[in-house]
Each structure stands twice: as structure tokens, then as C-alpha cells.
């Protein structure tokens, strides 16, 4: 039975108070997977995984010598006190992490079966009453007292009627471990069945199986097959019937799985996004929000049945159709469709973010309902799967693959009975293969598996897609599903953010992280466009959005994915060098907007609102050069990747520093200037000494100098390094010590002092449409975070204490006319301790796509805004930043939240941070050094957890 369940993808955990030899000899199971068998034994002290070779220890709670002594002392003390009451009891076993006391050491009750539990209880209680003890609860209380007196901090006292055990763990520890492990496997508690035979009270004490009903188990379904003479706790189903009934439940589950029934979501509202009905106005925005992406392809969440307002599409990462400014991401053949016209009123879609599954219930006109689930596998990128059940007529399709909208260069065929479609671009292309299988069910069941193969240079042979499909089919839907869920579980384990106290925000944040992770790949190079794989907007072109807004999240949670973003820049270094040379500069000049070739594809003009206007960002927005270097530095700071530091990272630093060194102009006084640029604030073009550009260039030069000091490449002479440092020191930054404010660019303070906060009907607002470009150019209205961005990216490069004056000056002047802006301001307000302002902007950022604030979500999700949302939480509210080989934390928690938890990966360590109002807990595996607040001294944080309490403005460690 257990092997069968495992083969069908079930994970099973057996919880027992006894040892592995005992349990394994009874089960004799050797499952091969994909489902796993866990043995949680010795009453919460051990966990084994059982595979084809038998049990393997996964975890063991090991008592310290002091704990061992205390347990023995506690047991002896308890025996003594019971003797004092006239009750003879005996220590019968010293089990792992507990001492077992026999309350009725009589031959007649040596080894009573479970079926005699009632009689046993009667006998024990009689014995206790004879000694003036009210019952088992009294004995348990006495044992607990003894345990505390003996020095145990958190004793666990349990009873099976015949015995009382004093220990360090109980079954609740097993339960905690199980739910945490299942979460790593992509399974929520709502997908769990808990079975037992002793949930209800026994002798006034909680039944042993009730310990499995931990807080996180609340959505699970618990049932008892036991006698349960005192009933079961609320929420537990009293099934009865003993072992036979239990077996019956398992067999039923197995039958359902064999029939290919649809998996279900656990429906947790903090992990699911549901869209009911069909709104033709908002449908395409909904489809973008429901995108399933695996780093290779992105599939919109359109309904399976046809509706003219839907916009189904599949986009391919890194493969572009067309050239130059008009190039765009290639559309691939579609796989998520059925025949029939949608009945709009009967549509429901739910995206399960925890497991990356899109559930849909719909009905074609006049037909009974169709239920389905689909996913784009993140464990096997490029592989997709759909399972649907319903009336035969509703599930019929002519082909499992449909040609994309632009079908000029598409061809199709069949190989090995599988359908394939190939779409060829000017460079590269995509090939897809898919196959449908039908089987009887309630109605019938359709199972479709598809495989995509893409290449940015050469159109793949359809045979490769067919082979990938065959391999996926060999694995089978259950295996694919299991692996996909587990892969999402692993991602969330490294990336989840929990906000205790704001469920709406919680869901919005998880959606953001889900889509960020979905759009990124962890191998090769990744050209991550502004909308990722969630839509065709911005044509899949790459901007600083990637390096500054998305990369930090990936660096801190999936470093390999961040590396693939950097690989895109590295592979196009030669294009950047060429561009620098073309403009008479040295080093590398990365493009403002790029696509396949890595060259600049910013258009020079655009016809907007009736006018032909020049687009000068490609020509003048040069801070991108430092932004790329900053991305590389961010990666290094978080990962400590020595190979990258000595190799490609060093190259990036050197080439970008060379660019700046050739770019600056020295005046007669020896001050360095950078003339004629556009900063992040694109309302003001062709400005001199933009603070952001200058300070980032300065940082770039210094960082490069530091890097070469450590790992000097052979072709770099000391003179060049010294020149960088000298230029860095000479660069003007517009800082006025008297006011503490950085002038955004030379002459900004002389512009018309318009305060957009008081002028605009609302903010955010695209102020160029409100005031016109001419008026804006002459006014102190800022599009997005510019000078303030320095405080976010390079806080060590700006004057200490300058954050607040610059926030107070620039925030009212910021139109937030870019979706990249509010999230960064949220982070900065949080850093400044201005939490209501921070929270307002955080919430706004979280709703940009959910509420379609731009009316362009249909063209794809705003990934940079989503990245800024994470940065606001991590860098802003949690105040997490690398500090050398340690991690600095400086949290600020809004009143409205009870806690903020986040997980990051720092230098190979998984670090969990929990922020409460007056407490901070950090656990790290392996251990890392943590600096808290302004402290200069680090403290080690281990897997056991470092706990600190706030005392005024400082933090003090709490001893365990």
C-alpha cells in the first residue's frame, strides 16, 4: 500500500512514540517515489525518510548532558512523590529524550492492546484514586512540576494511560516538522489528511494524536478511526472502524489518483488569487496577473475556452522577432485551450501561488462544467501540463497546439504521433510538441503534456521538442506535478515574505514574488524585459529595471537566477565596448534599452499625442553603465562568489570604470563633471552633473579601484587605478552641507519651484501629460526617485544624515510618474522611520497590477515595481543589508503589523528573519554574523536562532 501511494505521488508521514526498528519492521515499506515516506518517531525526537534502501535519518533532537540529567532527575522526583502518595510506579524505560513512568506495573497490565483502553483507564484511575489522586491529569501535573523543578525549560508530559512520559519533545514537534517539510514540497496544510485513533480526551488528558493538531494544521482534514470514548475535538471527523477504516481511506485516495482525478488547491487565501466571472474590460489584465511562467516560457491565464475578449499567448524568453527598436518577444504556439465558446458567467480561475498551479472551472455554452488544472513546470522548464475533466463535447480539441497570432513563419506536423509546431524568427525560434490523452472519468478526462524548446540563434528542430515531450510523458503527470510543486516549495523556502496583520498585502506580495520568480531562469543568460514573460509590453526589451529593481530580489533568494541576468550583460560586453568606442570613450557603455543583440534599441523618435517627439534616453541616459556595475556588486555582496569576483565581475567593474574615467570633464579647478545626461528623472533632459549619475559614477570608480586592489588584472596599471580614485574624489555631487540636500542637477534649484504634491489632482501622475514637457523642463517636478535613489542604492556614498532632508525636499516634488518610484520611496520612508508614509506607498505599489492602475497590465506585469515591493520590505522595513561578510538588520515595523518575516540567502546560508515590535529573531544555516541597528559588533546567528529584544534604540541579545 505505501509503495503504491508513493508511486502515485502521495507523501506519507507516520508518527509514533516508538523507535525506527520497531516501526520499520512493521511497515516493511521500500517506496521508490515520487511521493515520500517519513517516519517521525520517538515522540517527536527523530525523523527518518524511507527509500528503496530503507530508513535514513533526517533529523534528531539530541539532548544535552544537562537535559539528560534533568529528565532522569525529574522522573526520579516524580516517582518519589507518587510513592509519597502511596502509589508505586516505576521508571520502565529511558527512551530517546524522555523518561517513561509505568503507573500500573502489574503483570496483568503488562502489554495491554488498544482495544482494552477503556478497562485499562478504569484500572489506572482506581489505583490513582486509592492514593488520593483525582486522575491522570493530576499525575501529569505532578510530573510537569517535577520536570520544571529539575531544570527542564519546556518539558513535554504525555500519557498513554498506562504510562506518563517526561520528555523534551512530543508529537507536536513531529507535526511542525511535517508541515514545514510539506511546505518545502509545495503542499499546503489544506492538502493534508491527518489520521489517528486517539484524538479525544483520555483520563482527562489530551489524546496523544491531538498533539498533531498544531496551529498550522488547522486547514487540514483530521479523522479518527479509534473508539474515542470521550468524543473527538472540534473539527476532527469521528470515522471509527479501526485499522480497516483507515486502510479504506487510503485505498480510496489511491483509486482517485489512479483515475487521474484533478488535484485540488488547499485554498489558503494568503496563497491563492481567485478571479470569478469574466469582465471583458479587465480580462486581459487578469490574464497577465494569472500568468504561468517557468523562466523559459510564459503562458497567459486566459480561459481554456474561446472568448473574443481573451488574449491567449505564450511568450518565449530571450527569442526576439524583428530587429532593432521594433523587435519583440517571439510568440510561441499555444497549449492551454479547449474547443468551445466560453460561458462567461460560469468561469472561475484560481492561481495557487504556493504550488504554481492554475485551477479553472468553466462551462462552454449550454454544457455542463469543465474543471481543470494546469502548470508550466519550474522543475523542468519548457514543459507544460494540463488535466481537465468534463463532458466529452467540452474537451474535444482539434489539436493540442495552436499556431500563435503571427503565423507567417510557423509550420507544423506530426512525429511519433505527437503534434509539433515550429515558429522561426529572424534569429532563432521555438519548437513545441504536445500530446493529448483521454480517459474515462466523470465525463471524460483529458491530459495534455507539452514541451517547448527555444534558441535565440537557431530555430530548434521540432524533433528536439518531441524528444523532450516523450521524456516528460515517460515521467507522467503525477511525477511532473510532484516535482513542480516541490520546486516551488523550495523556491518559497528561500524567498517567502510573511506579513502578519495585513492579509491583502500578504497576497499581493506573494503574487509579486511568484511572478518575479516565474519570469527568471537559473541557467545560461536571461534577457529579462520590463514585463518579463507576462506580456508583450515593452517588447521584451531590457532596461535598468532588471539590474536595479529585479536583480536584488533574485540575488537574495535565487542567486543562480541573478547570475543569469548578469550573464546577459557579460555576453554583450563587446557590444558595450563597441558603443563606447563609437562615442569616443573607453571601457563599456551599456545600452539604455536592449534586446537580442545587446545593442541599443531605443527608438530615436516616437509619435505621441499628435506630435513627433525625439526620444533621447538611448543617447543620454548613461547611468545605466553604473547600474550594471551596481547589479554585479549587489550579486557579489550577497553571494561572496569568488570566481565571479575575480573573473567577470572584475571585468564589469574595470570596463565601467574606464567608461566613466573617459566620460568626465575636468574644469580648471580640477573638479570633475558629467555633462549632458538624463537621470532617472526623465522630465529633465540633457542636464549637467545629475547627482544620481555623478554619485553612481563615483561609486563605480571607487568600487572598481577596490576590486582591482584585491584582484588586479595584468593589463591594469596602478596609475589607472589611482586616476579612478582621483576622479571619484573630484566628481561634483551637488551636495549642500548647509541644507543637507543634493541638488538633483546643476541649476535645479533655480527652476520654477512647483510642488506637484499640491498641484496635481492626485499622485502618482504622469506629470508630462498634466503640465506639458516645456513647463516641466523649467520646473522642479521630478518624475521618479532620482537624487533620493542614491540613498537606496549606495547609502554609504551619501552624506550621513542626509536622507531625511532629501526626502522632505524631493518627495513633495515627485510626481511618481514611473511605476518604479513609489516602492523605492516606501523603502526610504521606512528607513527614515516615517512608517505611515512608507505603508501608504507600499500598498500603492502592491496594487499597481492587481488593480490595473496603469490600464496597461494587459500588456504585462510591472516586474520592476514588484521588485521594488520586495526591496521596500527587505531593505526598508526589515532593514536587511550585507555588511561585509555579515548581514546588517535595522528593522522598523509598522504599528498595523504584528510581525514581518522574510527569508533570504546570504553567502550560501539560508537566513530567516522575524521582526516583531520589540523582538527580532534571526536563524541562519550555516551560521552567519549579524549586526543589528547601528552596532559595529557582530553576533553569530545559527540555526537555533538568535533572539534579540529592543531596549530603546538598541537591541540586546536574549539568552536561550
Amino acid at each position, binding site marked *: 500500500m505505501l509503495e503504491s501511494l508513493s508511486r502515485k505521488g502521495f507523501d506519507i508521514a507516520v508518527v509514533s512514540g516508538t523507535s525506527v526498528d520497531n516501526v520499520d519492521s512493521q511497515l516493511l515499506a521500500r517506496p521508490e517515489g515520487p511521493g515520500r515516506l517519513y517516519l517521525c518517531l520517538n515522540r517527536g525526537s527523530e525523523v527518518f525518510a524511507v527509500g528503496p534502501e530503507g530508513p535514513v535519518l533526517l533529523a534528531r533532537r539530541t539532548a544535552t548532558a544537562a537535559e539528560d540529567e534533568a529528565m532522569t532527575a525529574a522522573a526520579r522526583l516524580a516517582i518519589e512523590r507518587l510513592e509519597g502518595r502511596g502509589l508505586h510506579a516505576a521508571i520502565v524505560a529511558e527512551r530517546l529524550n524522555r523518561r517513561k513512568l509505568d503507573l500500573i506495573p502489574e503483570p496483568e497490565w503488562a502489554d495491554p492492546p488498544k482495544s482494552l483502553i477503556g478497562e485499562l483507564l478504569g484500572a489506572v484511575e482506581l489505583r490513582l484514586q486509592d492514593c488520593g489522586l483525582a486522575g491522570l491529569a493530576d499525575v501529569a501535573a505532578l510530573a510537569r512540576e517535577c520536570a520544571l523543578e529539575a531544570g527542564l525549560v519546556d518539558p513535554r508530559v504525555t500519557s498513554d494511560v498506562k504510562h506518563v512520559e517526561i520528555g523534551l519533545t512530543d508529537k507536536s514537534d513531529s507535526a511542525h516538522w511535517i508541515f514545514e517539510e510539506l511546505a518545502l514540497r509545495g503542499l499546503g496544510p489544506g492538502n493534508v489528511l491527518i489520521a489517528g485513533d486517539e484524538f479525544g480526551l483520555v483520563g482527562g488528558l489530551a489524546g496523544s494524536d491531538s498533539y498533531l493538531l498544531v496551529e498550522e494544521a488547522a486547514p487540514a482534514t483530521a479523522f479518527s478511526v479509534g473508539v474515542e470514548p470521550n468524543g473527538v475535538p472540534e473539527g476532527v471527523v469521528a470515522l471509527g472502524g479501526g485499522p480497516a477504516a483507515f486502510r479504506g481511506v487510503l485505498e480510496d485516495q489511491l483509486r482517485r489518483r489512479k483515475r487521474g482525478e484533478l488535484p485540488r488547491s488547499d485554498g489558503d487565501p494568503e496563497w491563492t488569487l481567485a478571479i470569478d466571472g469574466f469582465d*471583458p*474590460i479587465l480580462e*486581459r489584465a487578469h490574464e497577465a496577473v494569472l500568468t504561468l511562467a517557468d523562466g523559459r516560457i510564459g503562458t497567459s491565464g486566459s480561459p481554456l475556452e474561446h472568448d473574443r*475578449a481573451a*488574449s491567449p499567448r505564450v511568450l518565449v524568453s530571450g527569442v526576439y522577432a524583428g530587429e532593432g527598436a521594433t523587435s519583440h518577444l517571439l510568440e510561441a504556439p499555444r497549449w492551454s485551450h479547449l474547443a468551445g465558446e466560453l460561458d462567461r458567467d460560469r468561469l472561475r480561475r484560481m492561481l495557487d501561488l504556493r504550488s504554481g498551479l492554475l485551477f479553472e472551472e468553466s462551462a462552454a455554452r449550454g454544457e455542463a462544467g469543465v474543471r481543470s488544472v494546469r502548470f508550466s513546470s519550474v522543475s523542468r522548464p519548457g514543459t507544460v501540463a494540463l488535466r481537465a475533466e468534463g463532458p466529452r463535447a467540452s474537451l474535444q480539441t482539434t489539436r493540442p497546439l495552436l499556431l500563435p497570432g503571427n503565423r507567417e513563419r510557423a509550420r507544423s506536423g506530426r512525429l511519433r504521433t505527437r503534434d509539433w509546431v515550429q515558429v522561426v524568427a529572424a534569429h532563432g525560434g521555438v519548437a513545441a510538441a504536445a500530446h493529448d490523452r483521454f480517459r474515462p472519468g466523470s465525463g471524460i478526462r483529458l491530459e495534455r503534456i507539452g514541451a517547448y524548446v527555444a534558441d535565440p540563434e537557431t530555430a530548434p528542430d521540432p524533433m528536439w521538442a518531441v524528444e523532450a515531450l516523450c521524456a516528460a510523458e515517460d515521467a507522467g503527470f503525477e511525477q511532473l506535478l510532484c516535482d513542480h510543486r516541490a520546486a516551488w516549495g523550495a523556491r518559497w523556502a528561500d524567498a517567502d515574505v510573511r506579513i502578519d496583520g495585513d492579509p491583502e498585502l500578504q497576497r499581493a506580495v506573494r503574487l509579486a514574488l511568484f511572478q518575479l520568480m516565474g519570469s527568471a531562469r537559473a541557467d545560461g543568460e536571461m534577457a529579462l524585459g*520590463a514585463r518579463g514573460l507576462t506580456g508583450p*509590453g*515593452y*517588447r521584451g*526589451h531590457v*532596461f535598468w529595471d532588471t539590474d536595479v529593481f529585479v536583480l536584488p530580489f533574485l540575488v537574495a533568494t535565487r542567486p543562480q537566477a541573478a547570475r543569469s541576468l548578469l550573464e546577459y550583460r557579460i555576453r554583450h560586453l563587446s557590444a558595450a565596448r563597441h558603443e563606447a568606442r563609437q562615442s569616443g570613450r573607453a571601457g563599456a557603455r551599456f545600452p539604455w*534599452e536592449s534586446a537580442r543583440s545587446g545593442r541599443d534599441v531605443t*527608438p530615436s523618435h*516616437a509619435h*505621441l*499625442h*499628435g506630435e513627433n*517627439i525625439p*526620444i533621447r*534616453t538611448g543617447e543620454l541616459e548613461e547611468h545605466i553603465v553604473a547600474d550594471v556595475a551596481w547589479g554585479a556588486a549587489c550579486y557579489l555582496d550577497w553571494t561572496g562568489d569568488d570566481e565571479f569576483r575575480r573573473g567577470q565581475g572584475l571585468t564589469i567593474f574595470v570596463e565601467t570604470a574606464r567608461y566613466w574615467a573617459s566620460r568626465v570633464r575636468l574644469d580648471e579647478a580640477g573638479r570633475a563633471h558629467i555633462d549632458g545626461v538624463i537621470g532617472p528623472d526623465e522630465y529633465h533632459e540633457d542636464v549637467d552633473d545629475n547627482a544620481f549619475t555623478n554619485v553612481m559614477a563615483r561609486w563605480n570608480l571607487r568600487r572598481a579601484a577596490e576590486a582591482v586592489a584585491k584582484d588586479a588584472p595584468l593589463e591594469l596599471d596602478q596609475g589607472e587605478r589611482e586616476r579612478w580614485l582621483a576622479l571619484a574624489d573630484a566628481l561634483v555631487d551637488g551636495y549642500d552641507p548647509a541644507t543637507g540636500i543634493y541638488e538633483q542637477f546643476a541649476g535645479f534649484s533655480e527652476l520654477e519651484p512647483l510642488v506637484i504634491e499640491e498641484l496635481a*489632482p*492626485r499622485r*502618482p*501622475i*504622469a506629470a*508630462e*501629460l*498634466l503640465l*506639458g514637457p516645456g513647463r516641466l523642463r523649467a520646473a522642479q517636478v521630478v518624475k521618479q526617485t532620482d537624487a533620493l535613489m542614491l540613498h537606496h542604492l549606495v547609502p554609504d556614498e551619501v552624506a550621513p544624515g542626509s536622507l531625511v532632508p532629501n526626502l522632505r525636499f524631493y518627495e513633495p516634488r515627485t510626481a*511618481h*510618474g*514611473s*511605476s*518604479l518610484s513609489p516602492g523605492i520611496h516606501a523603502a526610504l520612508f521606512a528607513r527614515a522611520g516615517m512608517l505611515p508614509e512608507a505603508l501608504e506607498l507600499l500598498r500603492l505599489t502592491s496594487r*499597481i497590477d492587481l488593480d490595473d*492602475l*496603469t*490600464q*496597461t497590465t*494587459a*500588456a*504585462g506585469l*510591472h516586474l520592476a515595481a514588484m521588485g521594488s515591493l520586495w526591496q521596500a520590505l527587505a531593505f526598508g522595513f526589515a532593514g536587511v543589508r550585507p555588511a561585509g561578510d555579515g548581514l546588517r538588520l535595522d528593522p522598523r515595523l509598522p504599528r498595523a503589523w504584528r510581525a514581518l518575516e522574510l527569508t533570504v540567502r546570504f553567502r550560501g546560508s539560508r537566513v530567516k528573519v522575524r521582526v516583531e515590535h520589540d523582538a527580532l529573531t534571526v536563524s541562519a544555516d550555516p551560521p552567519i554574523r549579524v549586526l543589528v541597528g547601528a552596532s559595529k559588533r557582530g553576533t553569530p546567528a545559527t540555526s537555533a536562532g538568535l533572539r534579540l529584544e529592543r531596549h530603546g534604540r538598541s537591541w540586546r541579545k536574549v539568552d536561550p
Partner: protein
Amino acid sequence: MNKVLAEIDNSAAARPVLAVARAFADILSVDVEAVHVREDGERNARAAAEAAGIGLRSLARPVVEALAEAGRSPDVVAVVLGARRVRSGRRPAGHVVLELALSLPKPLVVVPPDARLRDGLRRILVPLNGGRTTAVALAETLMLASSQEIELVVLHVHDAGTIPLFSDQRQHEVESWGREFLRRHCPYPERVRLEVRIGSPGESVLQVADETSSDVIALGWSQDLSAGHAAVVRAVLERSPVPVLLVPVGAEHSFGPAGVDEELRYEHAVA
């Protein structure tokens, strides 16, 4: 057979009214008939009708009632009439026009006295604000243009209240926004060209009509000229040098074939 009804007076404005009526009738493949209520003679009216080759029917006074009754005839698909008798006449339009516009539940084409169709009906400008009323006009105009070589220019005007929140990279943002706007509000987005402006909607409509050399401006409206309503209709009627097609919400007649998909007409309207 259905017809377009040209309601002409005895002024020089009759000739352009008849020309526009003929152009609409040709597109719709229906007849055209002229009617006239004799107030101050009828020789100009008769001469204009004869020159246009359109039959003229005389109606008895009172003027508005007679014309309204004629317009309500079930075989009339649209009514064409002059905005005013002379260029310097009443603004935004004469009282007859306004009273008919307010009461007649059919498409009404209001022709300025110096309107001239350059080369027939080739281009129609349809302002679209995303609301139901403007969507009606678009739907009707699409029907009109569906089988003809008529270009539709859809115009959206942002005002201070509707300016987008964000404009990350202008060239991409406007493209994305425009594409989605058409998908939301236009049944056949691939068949129209979108122009977006910022400013006063009335001014922008006239400006873009001029820039694009549009032959007709099509406006949907709720037949309410009270204060606070129909500002664009007033502004355009007042100053448009080209005919203005007014399509009331809930118009009895559609330019499309019988049985046109009601959903197609209205699904893209926002309530």
C-alpha cells in the same frame, strides 16, 4: 425600402445637407428623400433638391413637429439637417436642430452650412472616452464603415482627471495603453487608428478632425443638453466645419444589418 431623410430649409445650407445625405445613403445602400416645411418660400429648397436629383416632399407646419414626425418614420435610418442657415447663424445650432436632436431617437447628421465633402465619405473621427455613450457612436460608425473603404480614426482625450498614473517609457507606454484601450472599447481594434491627445476634449476633437482631414465627426450622446452635460457635443456643433453625426444611446435604428449582434454593439461600453 429604408432611406436617409434630408430635412432642408430654404437657405443655402440645403445643398450641403443634400450632398451629405446622398453620401450616407450611398454607403448604407438606402434611398434618400428630402423634406421641407414651407416657412419662407421653397424655391431654393426645390432647386437644391432637383440639382441633387433627390425627390422633395413638402410638409405642413409646425416645423419641428413635422420634421420630427417625418424622422420617426420606421423606414428612416438617419436624419440629415443643417446646423444653421448661414455661417453666422445660431450657436451651437439652430433651435430646430437642437429640438430634433433632443427628441429623435435616431442617428442625426448635423451639417454646417459651408461643409464640403472632399471626396465623399472617406474618414470619420470618433471620439471615445471609454464610456457607454461614446461606445455607441463607435459601434454605429463601425457598422457604417464595415463594408466600405472608410477609415475610422478613434480619438481619446486625456483631461486632468483621466491622465494616467504612470508613464514609464513614453514610447512603450503609449503603445501599450493605446492597444489596450482599443481592445476594451472597440469591437474591431485592428480596423481603426487611435489618436490620443491631452487637453480640452471639445478643442481636441476639432483640432484632430482638422489634422486628420476627417469628413465626419461621430459623437455618441445621451440627448441631454442641460448644464453639465454634452459639453463636447456643444463645442463640436458650435465650431465643426464638417458634418457631425450624433448617435443617441438607445437609438432605434442601427446602421448595421438587421439582427446585428447587440452584444457587439454594447459589450465594450462601460456602464
